[in-house]
């Protein structure tokens, strides 16, 4: 049997420390950006509204409101430019894609915070 060469190539490129997050989480995404020769960290804060694809092509979308305008950024999950992903709070969600948040403004965009599950 031939070794799956595609897998070999992709696995060596996946993150060594997989990002852990869920849809509806409010997060800080720390990205490394190069300015001239200097490297600095930029933080993008918002709610994760979607996660799509798998393997090398997997991405997640973070939405936030900046100056009254909705802004969405899509990051590749495996990008080495993402240095850190801080989860600030978990939101209660009933679907995998939170696109309905795009139609909402103000207070309606809030998600209820998810409490840790009670133990029996």
């Amino acid at each position, binding site marked *: 049997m031939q070794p799956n060469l*595609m897998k*070999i190539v992709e696995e060596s490129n996946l993150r060594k420390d997989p990002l852990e997050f869920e849809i509806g989480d409010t997060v800080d995404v720390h990205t490394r950006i190069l300015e001239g020769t200097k490297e600095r960290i930029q933080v993008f804060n918002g709610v994760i509204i979607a996660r799509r694809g798998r393997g090398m092509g997997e991405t997640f979308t973070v939405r936030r409101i900046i100056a009254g305008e909705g802004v969405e950024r899509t990051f590749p999950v495996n990008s080495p430019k993402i240095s850190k992903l801080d989860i600030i709070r978990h939101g209660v969600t009933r679907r995998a894609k939170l696109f309905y948040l795009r139609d909402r403004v103000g207070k309606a965009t809030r998600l209820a915070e998810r409490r840790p599950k009670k133990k029996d």
Partner: protein
Amino acid sequence: MPVGLLGRKVGMTQVYVESGELEVVTVIEAGPCPVLQLKTEDRDGYEAVQIGFGKKPRRLAARSERGRVANINGRVQKQKLEAGEELLPKADCEPPVYVREFRTEGEEHSCEVGQDLTVAVFAEQSCVDVIGTSKGRGFAGVMKRHNFQGQRATHGVKRVHRHGGSIGMSADPARVFKGTRMAGRYGGVQITVRNLKVVKADEGNNILLVRGAIPGPNGGMVIIRHTNKY
């Protein structure tokens, strides 16, 4: 030109390069390619290195194919030995699926029969050319084959939405010019893509990553050579 390699297109994906940027790459399973024969000006009329790729099960390989890689103790060989002829050196490997030659034309190369060429030959190289057979599309219309616009969907166009329109003038010249682009066989021909960047040459796994697309379907045979375009 230094000797290149034969390989198999595995598929396309994307990888991160050192700077953290994404690079779109084609994965090629390249080599190991045993050197089967060195052709010489004296004996063959030209100079070339003949290499193979892939392993054919011996039960499927014809006797001539097995004889290419090993000395079969047969009638012809005995005749040659009796006549005092010297036998050609053989690679002594499994019969290859594909055999191709690289013309050397008097240039230096350090290949010897039996030696395995690997992707190490491209390790220092920044760019390569890839030669393959493009996907056959059968008898294709002008829109697919020549990127014609076709005709409108509405405004009185009837049943000719994907036609090419006029193919020439009227009573003068009263013929269709040669080379006028029309429908016909499309694809399935040899295509060379030049100057593809080598993203990675992984000798352990016989993997070559080149930037961008290469001709042919996944699993198709390709020839990889050093580029002469800079």
